[in-house]
């Protein structure tokens, strides 16, 4: 659905996107992840036909984004960052206008306007002025606009920015429900978002792709540490024995819960040391009531990635 090769964009000499290449297959939900200024919005603006790349090539649904821009725009539903809208129009009037602009007519137009408003849960504000709506509603009006003509590809720039947790969950479910018919490329700087919604993550940093994989694999593959929590009763030099286990980087002694002593272990994530801990426990006659491994979140991966970048620079 999207085929990007060696795409570069410079703003007045400053590189915003630096030779990136990736593909998105039909039906996928792909997340662009990166801190502010990573080049997510720039890439999306190019893909939606708003501006041309400085060099490189991008194909969307079989059309070149620069040379065949009008055809690309017919097939893309784009929601820009911060949901820009005409503040002096009413919600329904606006969607009507946008639908017509995108080629919907007559009955089709009315039906799709209604559908889009229902999907995005904005039917109750359809007669209100957009300028008077809260940020959450504006965001959903923009989303309704993006999907009103049922485009095969949705490009959504930070679609959940400014929504409250309930609304975020609603948008997430909405996106998943669109899945068979629509391919979705969305961007966010919130990691949990991407973990829950996307099939694949493309991590951008300083205009380059740092990683591209499923959220799970990404977390596993990158050398982040996992956390093992442990509650036990026993004597002897417990922390020393735990530290001696392979792959353990650090043992943190936490506040004891009555007679139970609590530990957190930072462990390299490719090792699962839970069995080894049990073996030691049996040998030392410890009583264990909790043994839990927490896989690294993308948050951890991200922090590590950013830190390694900083390290390289110095």
């Amino acid at each position, binding site marked *: 659905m999207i085929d990007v090769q060696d795409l570069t964009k*410079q703003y007045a000499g400053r590189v915003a996107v630096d030779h990136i290449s990736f593909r998105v297959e039909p039906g996928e939900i792909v997340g662009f992840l990166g801190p502010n200024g990573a080049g997510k919005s720039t890439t999306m*603006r190019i893909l*939606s*036909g*708003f*501006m*041309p790349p*400085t060099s490189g090539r991008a194909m969307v649904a079989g059309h070149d984004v*620069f040379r065949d821009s*009008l055809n690309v*725009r*017919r097939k*893309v539903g*784009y929601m*820009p960052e*911060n949901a*820009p*809208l*005409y*503040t*002096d*129009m009413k919600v329904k009037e606006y969607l009507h*206008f*946008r639908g*017509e*602009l*995108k*080629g919907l007519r007559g009955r089709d137009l009315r039906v799709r306007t209604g559908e889009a408003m229902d999907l995005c849960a904005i039917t109750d504000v359809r007669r209100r002025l957009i300028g008077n709506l809260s940020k959450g509603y504006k965001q959903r009006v*923009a989303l309704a*606009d993006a999907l009103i003509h049922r485009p095969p590809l949705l490009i959504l720039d930070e679609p959940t920015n400014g929504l409250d947790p309930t609304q975020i969950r609603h948008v997430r479910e909405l996106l998943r429900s669109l899945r068979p018919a629509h391919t979705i490329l969305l961007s966010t700087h919130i990691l949990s978002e991407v973990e829950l919604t996307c099939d694949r993550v493309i991590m951008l940093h300083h205009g380059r792709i740092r990683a591209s994989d499923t959220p799970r694999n990404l977390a596993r593959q990158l050398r982040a540490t996992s956390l093992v929590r442990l509650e036990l009763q026993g004597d002897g030099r417990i922390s020393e024995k735990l530290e001696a286990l392979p792959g353990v980087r650090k043992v943190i002694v936490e506040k004891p819960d009555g007679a139970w002593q609590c530990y957190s272990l930072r462990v390299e994530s490719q090792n699962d040391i839970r069995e080894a801990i049990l073996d030691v426990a049996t040998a030392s006659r410890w009583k264990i009531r909790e043994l839990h491994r927490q896989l690294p979140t993308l948050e951890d991966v991200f922090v590590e990635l950013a830190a390694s970048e900083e390290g390289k620079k110095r």
Partner: protein
Amino acid sequence: MRTFWVLLKKEVKAFFVSPVAFIVLALLMVLNGFSFRAALTVLETAPSEGSIVTWTFQPLWFWLSYFFIFPLLTMRLFAEEKKLGTLETLFTAPVSTWQVVGAKFLAALIIYCILWLPGMGNFALLKWISGGVVEVPGGALKGSAVILFVMGLFNLAVGCFASSLTSNQIVAAIISFTTSLLHFLLGIFITNIGKKIPAAFADIVNYIASVEHIRTFTNGLIDTRPIVYYVSLAALFLALTHQVVEFRRWRP
């Protein structure tokens, strides 16, 4: 074509959602009213050359206030979209830059023409009230309408261009007002020094001097040269607007 109508409809509607159209209408009616009354006074007090039409449209102060209309009508067109960021949604829909520029310009032009209706109505009213005693010369009226229309084309195009340059409506208004006024004053300046220069220059001078155009047209003489002049200038400024709006799509 269909897309163009959709855009045009939206732009025309936008004028009536904001108070702009009504403010300009009020301004223009006051202006017309004063001008018309002044013309009547002239004709009442003494026999004079020229008709009611000539006296209404020729005073300088009429034209100086007249240039306030254009920034008011055009400053919003692109500047507001830039400020709101809606150019991004607009140009990611399947529309071409010409359709957008054309729709915005034509919408402003339509409003401009509508705004003149009450002013023109004054003459019909006069004829009706006086029972046909006062003569309203048709030729002069037609000439005035034509010159108002083509000068409108030009000044609205200037306004469109000014609006495409900035995201600040006030800045757009100032650029457009200054450009329109400078062009007009340049015409006066040239006409004045034109009397001291050889006749060969006078022809060229007549191309630029709006005051001269106004004088001939409001006397009922329809000359094609000024029409061509204003229409081509309008086309030039619309082409410039198109280029500015397209700028982001330029490849280095």
